């Protein structure tokens, strides 16, 4: 641990966390394309997929495309894992939110495999997801993601994935 720093005002801490989160998310074109947003409470992230017609798979039902759901859960898993990797540097101030250049962020974890369990058809409404990191070692991580729509307890999809952690040699 480095030398203890003076206690920062809560606003400074929040601004830095939100700025780093924004830099992490805004840098990925596919996240922007799907329209996924992240909400933060402390270190907890909730991904939000606002409904739009482009996400529809079966127009007859209509239902969200299974691929859009898979992508949404995978994005949630990767970003939650990345957030955990970044957290320590961010809290120590080594990673500053004010002028966070995406180039300064560590490389993203790489998906090894991803399994989606489709529990219900996705309704043409907003969807939410949260990921739980069940294990995160130096090389590999195992992450579980839950996706829901109107009711938190009624999941419409869940997924488990394994990820290769980025090498820390910056």
């Amino acid at each position, binding site marked *: 641990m480095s030398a203890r720093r003076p206690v920062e005002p809560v606003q400074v801490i929040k601004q830095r966390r939100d700025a780093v989160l924004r830099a992490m998310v805004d*840098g*990925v*074109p*596919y996240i*922007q*394309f*799907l329209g996924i947003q992240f909400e933060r409470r402390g270190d907890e992230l909730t991904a939000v997929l606002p409904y739009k*017609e*482009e*996400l*529809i*798979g*079966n*127009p*007859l039902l209509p*239902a*969200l*495309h*299974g*691929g*859009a759901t*898979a*992508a*949404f859960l*995978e*994005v949630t898993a990767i970003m939650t894992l990345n957030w955990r990797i970044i957290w320590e540097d961010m809290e120590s101030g080594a990673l500053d939110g004010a002028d966070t250049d*995406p*180039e300064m962020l560590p*490389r*993203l974890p*790489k*998906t*090894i*495999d*991803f*399994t*989606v*369990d*489709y529990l219900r*058809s996705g309704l043409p409404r907003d969807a939410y997801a949260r990921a739980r990191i069940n294990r995160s070692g130096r090389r590999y991580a195992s992450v579980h993601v839950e996706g829901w729509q109107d009711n938190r307890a009624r999941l419409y999809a869940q997924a488990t994935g394994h990820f290769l952690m980025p090498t820390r040699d910056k």
Partner: protein
Amino acid sequence: MADKNTAAHRFIDALPHARALGMHVETMRDGEVSLSMPYADHLVGDPRTGVVHGGAVSALMDTCCGAAVMTHPKNTGSTATIDLRIEYLRAATPGQTIIAKASCYHVTRSVAFVRATAMDADEDNPVAMATGTFTVEGKA
């Protein structure tokens, strides 16, 4: 089964999410389907490398597998994904079209089993592999 293949072709072309990702039906016949997805900037998952996001590959695989189920002679109705597992073997080369090939190799009264492979220009080294199970709808 020509009518059914044509109907499925039209159905895939009309899926809003498949259109948004630029997917195109290459071949489609009796449980064997090939779809292509040209490289596009908005599909990028890692801006530093320009590699397409795994989620876009998942969407291509899911569509291709679903189409394989729909065109299988033993399936009379629509279908929905029960489970889909994707293994990412390597990063797709930036700038290259990704092609998925799916085969619906077994169908029971209620479940269809599918395998798929995704490739870029280097066809000997697949980008991803998928295995999935899908619902069989229609006659009970």
